[in-house]
């Protein structure tokens, strides 16, 4: 049931986690080859640097014109990539003649026009492959435009070909947005319980749930970066006492930069799962010197409310096999709750752009026979899901239909209509997993 290493040596099944005499033992598995460039010809689930910058981080910031300096394709597909994003999509719509005769003027006009028509707080200009390759002076244009319209015009040098994965785009977005921090209004009143949540959930809704939960124990979130962020909120991020880093993959850089520049310490926080959520609240409380009883009471209150339901799900999901395919951070966040809170077994893991450190952490958490795929192509993913006998697959929407065609239940890991964050959110999640596995339709498939 496991892969032959020789056969797959350069097909991106880089990690093999098995316990036969021939294969490598778990402790000396070579994880250094992961997070490298995609094997040419693969139908990968990975995305480009531009995506990491524009969709994952930039796009969530409200009241900003997100202007993509690209042909129509890059702007259009990224605009509705995550269905939660709402608002107009802006592009300079590069045509063949613009490549020949320079598109700098076009971009400048677009910035001025967008600012006049929509009156935004700022304009973000995203570079794509074509201007990246031509070498347009976007820095100069955005600077000039910013002086003209008197709002920040921020330029992201995130051409798609630049990094091996979208992770490079996260770095670029973090670096550029860091520049805005610290220009807040003077009359801002800070409290000893101000924090930032960096790299929160994946939607405004999740950010608000975290903000709400923290407010119940007396903590004020200055900015949920970037799920519920505006330019003004980002500006005052430097007034926080600590940073809570939720997704270390997309936002650790920012936390580190803020520590260096403003001396704001950061702690990791993970609000997915019962144990994780309780632990994170305790850690945050400790860091901010909040009364211990207050936090324990809050946790106990929540546990009491969901106890009955949780027991039921634990009972029914015991021993069910789950396959997780997500970004490395989400995989890491999900393994423990699935194992400990819901009693499930991990059938397999796939990530698109985990690094060596991520994989080492993942390997520690899962049993030895488990398949781990790094940047799988559709074919490898298909095989792994079938051969691992998964009862349910948790992943992003783009492999939903592949999983369904294999006759395996699927749960969208980011949460669609319902949120999976927090205590009640985890019950939503368990409900989805339970519902997916127990739908009657799967029994009718084989006839």
């Amino acid at each position: 049931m496991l892969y032959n290493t020789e056969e797959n040596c350069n097909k991106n099944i880089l990690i093999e986690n098995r316990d036969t005499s021939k294969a490598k033992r778990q402790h000396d598995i070579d994880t250094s080859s992961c997070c490298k460039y995609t094997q040419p010809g693969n139908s990968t689930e990975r995305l480009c640097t531009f995506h990491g910058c524009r969709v994952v981080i930039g796009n969530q910031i409200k009241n900003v014109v997100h202007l993509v300096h690209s042909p129509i394709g890059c702007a259009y597909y990224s605009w509705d990539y995550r269905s939660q994003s709402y608002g107009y999509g802006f592009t300079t719509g590069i045509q063949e003649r613009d490549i020949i005769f320079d598109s700098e003027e076009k971009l400048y006009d677009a910035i001025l026009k967008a600012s006049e028509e929509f009156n935004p707080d700022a304009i973000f200009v995203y570079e794509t492959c074509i201007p990246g390759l031509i070498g347009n002076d976007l820095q100069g244009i955005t600077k000039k435009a910013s002086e003209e319209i008197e709002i920040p015009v921020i330029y992201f040098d995130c051409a798609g070909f630049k990094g091996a994965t979208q992770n490079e785009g996260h770095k670029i977005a973090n670096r550029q947005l860091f520049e805005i921090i610290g220009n807040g209004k003077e009359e801002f009143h800070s409290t000893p319980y101000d924090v930032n949540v960096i790299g929160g959930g994946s939607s405004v809704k999740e950010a608000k749930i975290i903000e709400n939960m923290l407010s119940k124990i007396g903590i004020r979130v200055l900015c949920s970066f970037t799920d519920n962020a505006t330019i003004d909120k980002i500006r005052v991020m430097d007034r926080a006492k600590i940073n809570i880093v939720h997704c270390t993959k997309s936002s650790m850089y920012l936390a580190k930069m803020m520590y260096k520049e403003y001396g704001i310490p950061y702690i990791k926080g993970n609000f997915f799962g019962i144990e994780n959520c309780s632990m994170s609240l305790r850690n945050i409380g400790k860091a901010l010197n909040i009364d211990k009883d207050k936090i324990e009471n809050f946790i106990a209150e929540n546990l009491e409310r969901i106890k009955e339901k949780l027991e039921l799900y634990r009972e029914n999901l015991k021993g069910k096999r789950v396959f997780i395919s997500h970004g490395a951070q989400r995989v890491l966040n999900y393994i423990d709750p699935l194992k400990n809170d819901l009693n499930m077994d991990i059938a397999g893991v796939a990530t698109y752009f985990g690094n060596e450190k991520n994989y080492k952490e993942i390997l520690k958490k899962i049993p030895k026979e488990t398949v781990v795929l790094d940047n799988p192509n559709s074919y490898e993913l298909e095989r792994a899901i079938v051969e691992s006998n998964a009862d349910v697959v948790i992943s992003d929407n783009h492999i939903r239909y592949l999983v369904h065609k294999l006759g395996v239940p699927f749960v969208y890991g980011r949460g669609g209509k319902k949120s999976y964050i927090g205590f009640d959110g985890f019950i939503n999640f368990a409900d989805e997993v339970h519902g997916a596995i127990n739908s009657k339709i799967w029994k009718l498939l084989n006839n």
Partner: protein
Amino acid sequence: MGGVLAVLGIYRAFPLVHGSQGCANYVKNTLAKHFKEPVEIATTGFYEISAIYGASDIIESSIKNILENRNPDLIITMTTGLSEITGEDIQRELKRITENIHEDYASNNGTYFVGVSTPSYKGTHIDGYNNTLKEIIKTITEKNKNKNKELGKDTLKSDKINIIPGFVNPGDVKEIKSILRKMNIYYRLLTDITTLDRPLRLPKERFPKCEATVRDIEESPNSKSTLSFGMEGIDGAKYLEDLGVPSYNLKFPIGIENTDNFIRTLSNISGQEIPESLWEDRGYAIDAIVDGNDVLRNKRVAIFGDPDKVIGLTNFAFEMGMEVVAVLSNTETSYFISEIKKISMENNGKITLFEGSDLYQLHNYIKRRPVDIIIGDYRGRYIANEERIPLLRVGFPIVDRYGYHRKPILGYNGALRITEEIINLLIESSENYENLSIL
């Protein structure tokens, strides 16, 4: 996008997008969300290093990788803005690579390699479909001609008709097939996108099935004639015409008149009578339009989408007694303008025409001059929600509803479906439950 759709409509064909990972994945994501089916698109993984040192080695290893993993009958390499701008000549590269590969994989002589230039800064998905299909037909028929010469074999002319369905949904292709079968016409579909609407039966198919095969394309020059719709696929039809296959370019069979014309043309080419069952279908569609006349007439419509479908839908809306007030095409063509002007004149209507513009402009127009219904893809929902106007979802992409890829807009059945949906949407939007009184 258009190119990929043409490739996916051929059995055992595999698309390879020569560009950054995002280029392949964005297209894959949109297709999967619309069709609710798994889609495989390979990427060559174009990184900074390829931009500097050239990318021929990654194309070569991509093709080898696909051959080893999937072994398709046809691999189509499509360029992107990124790879195109480095000034590389995909045809020349591919020729060199193909020679290398045929030496390496002697047993693999069957696979065709096609290269198409489809940069995103040039045209839209409609052009992509058109160009890609033409290149596929060109490459395959040229190779095949040489092969046949070597074998000393003269291929036989057949009675089959080539059909190029265009950038349409599986439901539309099924409707075309059903019309052809009812008329007892033998056909070769040159793309059949029903690959993206497959039943769930285990185990999963390696390649989704459809009726358009590489063999069909090989033999397409032997057909009696070629039918294509609008500008979608016209270049492929013209290429086949140069090989001696007469081609007919029709309007999309949307609505009664255009479907009549399509069926009449089929009857003329094949010599087959129009069967009773099609007259029945026509009768059903007309019955529905007549029954809903009091709901439909004088209603103001805005239509947006691909130029050829907008032309067809505009014509059909007038047939239903509606008044088209604004149309928007996503692809710039002079022929679209003249067609719409013609329809406008014929119907004494005053159609406001947006060409190569965006939905924001259409929205501003609708704010000033309200309409009763919008016809277009799912992106119209932002206007529809804000202005509280119903939206009839047609075309591509529709990612926020299920099953629309199965619903035809072509043929009498497509006309019937559109009529029923428009009537119901209009009734729903005029109903006000708050003011209903039970007594």
